[in-house]
């Protein structure tokens, strides 16, 4: 299959007029071209992100001004779920749940990996396409179907899944406990099953392509860090997503087939259930066995993208290339040994808790190495502030702020008092949410010329960055304080307690920043879609970058390169190398006599 596809692509490559003959359907819809599939992932993710952003604005309104009616809320939720514009408590929990699900899986997993793995793997490695174009296409359409089902679940009778994005049973198993655990939850599980299938197909393709389809001279140690990050992301996904699938299937059985994997000794709505012998904690183990690696599934591609962009725009080699690879490996490995830190207060054996404290805090070491390497890359650089560079620096800032609070949460004794409070919300939104979305924005601004052959507007990019960056801290920094005041997450309002009166005004501040930040995304979305059609034409290598994707023609073609594939002679970070006329040297430039490869 791979060899055959290769031959076919080579034919196409010989005559790049061929793509005119493609029909609309095979070019834009059921395409097997990795570049178009990447763009499909991106556009779908942008639309899904808007759904999740609007949800967050709705629940932020409720948190800032609890019980007040808003036309905005009523506009989206209607009279059933928001009579008089005041959101119903069940719908509040539903929005929190779906916001998390969409952001974590549909935007930051599929949107980030799907877009950049597809765009960059063949282009940066010098391949005609992915190993299997067909499985790649299926991967997108499974993702698309799962997105449609997830959105459809918003419209069922009892509302969408409402048990939090972590869907802990028994709450998620019993429609009597919360209405969202009826049809909404079933659709959630079906949607996630398809999503996992999509993610596995994508992941296998990425790994196979990276291992087998590198062009001549592209040794593993000459791969850009984006590819290294995507490689380990795919490996993590392949190993951990099936566990979530099994967790979801067992939950489906408990819900529909009277099994008792997760249920035991439950008395609800006046009746004792017959389930005995199951354990709700089992689900948490299975869930977090994916759930924690998932954090790195969204974070690693962002870190890879940032490494590439910081090096390019600081006109300086990434500091410690091999240490960067090593830390990605270490993070990927450790990510499988830390899931229990989400469960310190479930009644888990305290000794087991100690082990998870130890492994979790170990992750801070490779993370610190990465931060210091970024700082050293910036030191004495020659920095060009493209919007992509700004978002990359923003990522380093959020990675620092969120990473440090992670040390508090990993320390089980401290986790007891901040577990499930707003402190946790602040931590993971900064370190995972903001870092990953900043990496995604950076990637979009940086590779937009490669994707669409046009440039995005830089001034709007600056405006977008600075508002988003300020709002990111404006939203999530005060949440640490709300959490340290003891305020739990997933509370519909805090009016029932006097003890939170001192910090509720922070909720107003947070909401104002949140709305401003959401509006700033209009600038991005407008800039993006406008530039797709009307942006100024790009030159072949607008950022003077070394990597292979910038040696392809601006106009997309099947097979990526007209004529033979490029041959690689050096690592990707020869920026400002002494003795060179330019401050960049493309990977396809042969080493001069006597020149050493410095990585």
């Amino acid at each position, binding site marked *: 299959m791979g060899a055959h596809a290769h031959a076919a692509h080579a034919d196409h490559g010989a005559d790049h007029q061929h793509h005119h003959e493609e029909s609309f359907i095979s070019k834009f819809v059921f395409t097997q071209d990795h570049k178009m599939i990447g763009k499909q992932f991106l556009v779908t993710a942008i639309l899904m992100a808007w759904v999740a952003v609007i949800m967050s604005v709705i629940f932020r309104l409720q948190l800032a001004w609890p019980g007040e009616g808003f036309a905005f809320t009523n506009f989206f939720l209607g009279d059933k779920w928001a009579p008089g514009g005041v959101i119903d408590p069940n719908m509040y929990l539903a929005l929190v749940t779906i916001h998390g699900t969409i952001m974590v899986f549909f935007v930051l997993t599929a949107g980030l990996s799907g877009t950049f793995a597809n765009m960059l793997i063949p282009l940066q490695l010098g391949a005609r396409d992915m190993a299997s174009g067909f499985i790649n296409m299926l991967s997108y359409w499974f993702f698309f179907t799962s997105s449609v089902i997830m959105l459809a679940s918003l419209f069922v009778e009892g509302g969408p899944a409402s048990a939090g994005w972590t869907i802990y049973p028994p709450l998620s198993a019993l429609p009597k406990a919360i209405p969202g655990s009826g049809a909404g939850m079933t659709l959630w599980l079906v949607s996630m099953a398809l999503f996992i299938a999509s993610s596995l197909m994508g992941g296998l393709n990425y790994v196979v392509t990276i291992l087998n389809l590198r062009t001549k001279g592209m040794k593993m140690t000459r791969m850009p860090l984006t590819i290294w990050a995507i490689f380990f992301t795919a490996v993590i996904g392949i190993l951990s997503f099936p566990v979530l699938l099994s967790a979801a299937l067992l939950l489906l059985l408990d819900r529909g087939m009277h099994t008792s994997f997760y249920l035991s000794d439950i008395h609800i709505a006046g009746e004792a259930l017959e389930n005995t012998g199951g354990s709700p904690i089992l689900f948490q183990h299975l869930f977090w066995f994916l759930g924690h690696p998932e954090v790195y599934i969204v974070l690693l591609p962002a870190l890879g993208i940032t490494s590439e962009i910081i090096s390019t725009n600081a006109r300086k080699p990434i500091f410690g290339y091999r240490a960067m690879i090593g830390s990605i490996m270490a993070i990927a490995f450790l990510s499988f040994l830390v899931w229990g830190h989400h469960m310190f207060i*479930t*009644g888990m054996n305290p000794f087991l*808790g100690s082990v998870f404290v130890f492994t979790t805090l170990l992750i801070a070491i490779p993370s610190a190495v990465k931060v210091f390497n970024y700082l050293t890359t910036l030191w004495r650089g020659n920095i060009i502030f493209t919007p992509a560079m700004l978002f990359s620096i923003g990522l380093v800032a959020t990675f620092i702020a969120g990473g440090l609070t992670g040390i508090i949460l990993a320390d089980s004794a401290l986790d007891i008092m901040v577990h499930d409070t707003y402190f946790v919300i602040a931590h993971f939104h900064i370190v995972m949410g903001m870092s990953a979305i900043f990496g995604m924005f950076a990637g979009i601004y940086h590779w937009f010329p490669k994707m669409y052959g046009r440039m995005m507007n830089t001034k709007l990019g600056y405006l977008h960055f600075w508002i988003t960056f300020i709002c990111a801290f404006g939203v999530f920094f005060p949440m640490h304080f709300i959490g340290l005041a003891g305020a739990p997450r997933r509370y519909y309002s805090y009016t029932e307690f006097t003890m939170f009166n001192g910090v509720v005004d922070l909720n107003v501040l947070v909401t104002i920043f949140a709305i401003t930040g959401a509006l700033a995304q209009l600038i991005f979305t407008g800039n993006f879609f406008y530039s797709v059609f009307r942006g100024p034409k790009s030159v072949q290598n607008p950022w003077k970058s070394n990597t292979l994707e910038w040696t392809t023609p601006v106009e997309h073609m099947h097979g990526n390169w007209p004529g033979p594939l490029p041959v690689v002679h050096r690592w990707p970070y020869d920026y400002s190398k002494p003795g060179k006329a330019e401050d960049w040297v493309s990977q396809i430039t042969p080493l001069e006599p006597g020149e050493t490869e410095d990585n």
Partner: protein
Amino acid sequence: MSKLLILIVVLVGALAVAQVARVYELTSRLRGKREEDISPADNRMNARLMWAFLVAYFAFFIWLIVAYKDKMLPVAASTQGVETDWLMNFNWAILAVMFVVTNVLLFFFAGKYVYSKDRRAFWFPHNNKLELLWTIVPAAVLAVIIIYGLNSWNNITSPASPDAVVVELYAKQFDWTARYPGQDGRMGATDYRLINGDNPLGIVTAKSIATRLAEIDTEIAEEEARLQGVLPDDKVAEIEDHIGYLGRMASRIVNLRVVMEQDIKENGEASTYLHGADDVVTKDFVLPVHKEVDILIRARDVIHSAYMPHLRIQMNAVPGMTTHMKVTPTITTDSMRTHVMHDEAFDFILLCNKICGASHFNMQMPLTVVTASEFTAWVAEANKKPFEPAGTQPGAMAILPDSTVNLVGDSTGAAQAPSTGH
């Protein structure tokens, strides 16, 4: 209609932004430069904004600390909490240094090394000594954090001493109930199948088993009476299903009774089945100061979490298992009111901290910490109202109605061991 209008406004707004951008691009092209090129002025502006951001970032941080430090949780009111707070401050001290150093370097470098045509970046691809340095230093710092952290963790999670006061917290949607062991100082066994209006915790006694069986008996009779009427087929099936369910429930409860009798025979007075009747089930959650308390936590329906922020303790309540946490309160509610909070209405609060349904946000219970002598007096008073008032002696099997046993058939035939909730 209004929705349509709003959509149109949004679309027109987006178009307007696009047109402004277009005009801007065209005018810059007229001035002979490409908009997407990054000009020296752009670079300088962003570099300065980086420095400005650093200042604003730290200022915001300091403002938050100054403005809200007195609105955080008050002083910890338990020995565990005092230890946690110390550890928290110790960690913050380390993290603050790392936070300031890394952020200053990041934004300072970003603002300082702005692009110049006349300069080249410093060629510095790697340096083993530096890389080793920032592997070893974080590792050493983390080792300290881990050692102190695990030390506290072990102190907090070690088993409570045998003479600790025992209290049970029972969670359900959306309230809490407390249980005290009563006169005999021991908690009785529980089973969720025995839960009814009078026995919200499902405490096992001969009487509660008999009552529950009689209830099921009545319910079956009612359902069977309904079957006599004219009903659609699906309704009949539904009722028959329900009767089957009730029968199975009754047989499990009979099993439970067999297990109970066996246990009593083997262990005599030590059997946990003999200690339920005098338990105190109450909505008052009272703890003694300066005395270790072992809190047992159970849940009826979904996962809840017993969170007492003032005492800095928290533990999940999980259906099907009992979790523990120990705490030694150090400040009474009265001293909190007069000496710490200066607020006569202050109460320690127990709140639910695991999403559990629509009213999760209001699942709370006040906690009163009293002096040792007040606690003794309170317990003596509470013990006067046991779960089963005196007169029904534990182990009084005679009151069981025989009809129930006949109804569910031979109880020895069923193999399933009932859960005791422990």
